[in-house]
């Protein structure tokens, strides 16, 4: 896949600035009192081996019609766009690829300016080998975060690349953010160049190579939030809008309300958002969590509404996706201090699609149930097991997972897991069972250095068709994380894990 490289020159400056600034702080021969750098460096290497799907072509003469009237080849339904040839998915030869990710996260403060700090999170990616392109591995560098913050009393100001964690997701932008807070209230506002959702890169540059129709235009983001923290609970209201830099149109306009409240022993959390651009209610969630019998029981009831959100810059939102509403009940029981059991069940129904249906409509409801247990066996051993069943439009999944962990010492942990699942993808071919398992280990080498690694295999046994075993795969990963700078609490946090 070809990706635009023009943003490299842009990001390089963004990367270098915080690096130079923090390096200056770190190596400066005359550090100011209270000056410090803290952070971590993490390296993750992952490998996967699998057999990708490939589109295969066969002569129509080899296709037969099965009992249901569907055209098949060796038991697998095919599509025959022409009279002479049919297409179907097969599996290619096994391919292996290795991807590496390098993160550097640093926060520095000092310089004799009270409340001034720099925060940066840099990520480097590389594909070490193989033919399968690991998602985003062709992005050599990303500055995910890179901002300066000044905190003076109740005022905080940030400038640079940052993101907002909110009921509207994780909008990221290059710009400024400011807040005023008191013990009970906080108001904040932000504006800047909007970055692509889930990418933290300029939207138009990041997505144009991937999508046929992405406007070549900078998008500005502006938003504001107000938070109240009262005895009854906390609530945050937020408004946010994105517009094209040339003001030729709106990209998004949304608002959200998130709250958490403690009513006696119960905790009430809720969130709802509204899409002003399309004039419709977005996602919503209301959860009541109630501990019973001194916390041995935990009961949680959730009402949820989900509808996907799309920006006006794409055509997807104009297709008017419908929402689903779901009710879910979950409970956990700490039967003993070393044993906890849980179970959950939920049912959802989709709104009226007003779409043409032929023969029979698709499912418009779904449900999911699950149950599991956590057991501390003693002597460093613990077990975790669960069963989940989910059946809705588009997919069915029945899965059993079992994990076991052994703390050989305060520094060494060993884990093993096994899984088996049956999966049906309703909108496509595919019905099969998979069995897999893996081993992993994590070792705290020093108070600041942790290494971990693992490997797993998954074997797919298809449902009797010739075709595919796309879920069969082997994976391995390793990671190294090094704490850097002044962090007296680092060792304690690590040891607790």
């Amino acid at each position, binding site marked *: 896949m070809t990706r635009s490289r023009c943003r490299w020159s842009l990001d390089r400056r963004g990367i270098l600035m915080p690096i130079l600034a923090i390096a200056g702080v770190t190596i400066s021969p005359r550090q100011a009192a209270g000056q410090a750098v803290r952070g971590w460096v993490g390296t993750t290497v992952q490998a996967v081996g699998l057999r990708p799907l490939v589109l295969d072509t066969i002569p129509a003469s080899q296709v037969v019609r099965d009992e249901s009237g569907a055209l098949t080849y060796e038991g697998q339904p095919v599509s025959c766009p022409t009279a002479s040839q049919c297409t179907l998915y097969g599996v290619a030869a096994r391919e292996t690829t290795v991807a590496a990710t390098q993160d550097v996260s640093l926060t520095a403060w000092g310089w004799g300016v009270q409340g001034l700090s720099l925060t940066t999170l840099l990520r480097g990616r590389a594909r070490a080998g193989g033919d399968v392109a690991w998602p985003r591995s062709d992005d050599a560098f990303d500055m995910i975060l890179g901002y300066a913050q000044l905190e003076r009393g109740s005022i905080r100001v940030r400038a640079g690349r940052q993101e907002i*964690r909110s009921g509207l997701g994780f909008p990221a932008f290059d710009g400024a953010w400011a807040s005023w807070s008191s013990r009970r209230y906080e108001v904040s506002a932000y504006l800047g160049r909007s970055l692509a959702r889930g990418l933290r890169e300029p939207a138009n540059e990041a997505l144009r190579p991937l999508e046929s129709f992405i406007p070549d235009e900078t998008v500005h983001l502006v938003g504001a939030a107000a938070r109240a923290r009262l005895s009854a609970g906390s609530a945050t209201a937020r408004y946010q809008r994105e517009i094209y830099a040339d003001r030729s149109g709106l990209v998004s306009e949304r608002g959200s309300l998130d709250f958490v409240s403690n009513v006696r022993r119960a905790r009430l959390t809720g969130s709802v958002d509204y899409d002003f651009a399309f004039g419709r209610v977005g996602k919503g969630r209301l959860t009541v969590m109630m501990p019973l019998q001194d916390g041995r029981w935990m009961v949680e009831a959730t009402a949820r509404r989900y509808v996907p959100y799309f920006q006006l810059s794409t*055509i*997807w939102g104009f297709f008017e996706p419908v929402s689903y509403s779901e009710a879910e009940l979950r409970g956990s029981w700490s039967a003993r201090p070393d044993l906890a059991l849980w179970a959950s069940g939920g049912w959802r129904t989709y709104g009226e699609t007003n779409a043409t249906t032929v023969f029979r409509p*698709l499912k418009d409801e779904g449900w999911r149930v699950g149950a599991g247990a956590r057991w501390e066996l003693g002597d460093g051993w613990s077990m975790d097991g669960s069963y989940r069943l989910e059946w809705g439009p588009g997919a069915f999944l029945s899965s059993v997972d079992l994990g076991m962990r052994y703390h050989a010492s305060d520094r060494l942990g060993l884990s093993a897991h096994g899984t088996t699942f049956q*999966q049906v993808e309703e909108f496509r071919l595919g019905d099969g069972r998979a069995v897999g398992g893996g081993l992993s280990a994590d070792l705290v080498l020093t108070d600041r250095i942790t290494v971990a690694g693992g490997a797993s295999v998954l074997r797919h046994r298809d449902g009797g068709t010739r075709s595919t075993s796309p879920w069969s795969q082997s994976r391995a990963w390793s990671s190294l994380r090094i704490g850097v700078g*002044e962090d007296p609490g680092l060792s304690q946090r690590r040891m607790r894990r």
Partner: protein
Amino acid sequence: MRPLAPQVLCHTRRLAFAVTALTALAGGSGAAAAGAQQQGFPHERHQGLFPLCAGCHEGIPGSDSASFYPTAATCARCHDGEQQVRVSWSAPERRAHNLRFDHRVHAGRLERGGDPPVECTGCHTPEGGARMSVSEDIQLGTCFGCHEHQAQEHLVDAYCRTCHTPLARSGMSLSFIEALPMPADHEAQNFVLEGHGSSASADWRRCATCHTADRCAACHVDAARPEIESLEYAPAGMELAMMTAYYPKPATHDEAWFDEHGTQASREACATCHTQDDCTVCHSGSLPVRAAALPRADQVLAPGAGIEARAPASHASLFFLDVHTALAAAEPGTCATCHQESFCVACHDGPSNGGYHPPDFVARHPAAAFGREAECANCHSTEAFCRECHQESGLTGFGRLGPGYHSAGAFWLIRHGQAARQGLESCISCHKQTDCMQCHGVAGAFKVSPHGADFDARSAWERSPRTCVACHLRNPLNGSQP
């Protein structure tokens, strides 16, 4: 809080110390040595020879320490081997003490014939004893015979500096210090937490009688506070009892306080027990200004209370991961207390082993992707992540004439609308916009409108005309060119 260390107290209840100290002082020497010399020098046998105490102890009235005791030559005037047998004699070493007693004052009263006159025997001879029956033990009552003690309890409410010098100036040995009696009020259960601070604020000089500032600085992170700085540190070479810091957890530090402690934090309130390092155990980002006001552990003598990071009660729920989004959105600052932004990113934009998804999730993610319990796009760009991976796995949209992927049901193409409206995000994890525009655009094959019955075309045009034009090629309201 970390487990409380046992308090090492340098006080004992050995009130005999006071007696011993006074004994030493009365003899012009430390207690033990003085006692030994009393036994060595038989005062009573010499009482007929010396009419005045100052004949031998001539330096005492003038506080001339060099002539507190007679010299060996003085003894040899009689004990010359002819008149009397030779004896060996050396004056005892003066031992340190912390009494403010000044012989000169009392000697002055003697010379002036004060009323009542102060004789040496008034203190040094037991009541009813012979003139030179010098006692080893001088009772407190000896002082209090003249000096009325204003305090009901000597060790609790006396004005210490009337009689005592600060410990730091006393030069007392470790054994003396360890033998200092402990006042009764120090034994109160909450003395360390609630008593000693107010007591020190009221009269730090009382503390200084038995303590140097080192004792305070052993626990107090912020030893620069006035009450402590008023005390003197032990001079070089002075040996002190081992001091182990003791940090009992205040009753105020309950769960409710834990939630609010940030708003109440200040150097004055926290630095008694906590260094900046305690803050950074949890506060993992840039240090809050209030926390930065506290001294670092390497800047102070006290170790600080030392705390362990702990998760709030909400994190204990087996379902916390599912509800954390609402909490984070409602109270983002609360999360940021302990978690750096990179902590969030580790999952939300991480290299896939962030821990949110179970192992092998990618192989069975379709159900979760269709069900959308969580919004995948919060972490994954549908285009850059989902579609890129699907393409690499061979799942690529090929326009309106699918090659067989959706062949599980007959006539998929003409019945896909319901699936699209129910799970559009899943569709676009493989399909580009142009795949749909082949049929749904005005230039497409079938010109099928994707809009619902309630679609507000005018509003859409006003908000984003360029998107309308993508399919309609011109203004769909009036047909004009954009």
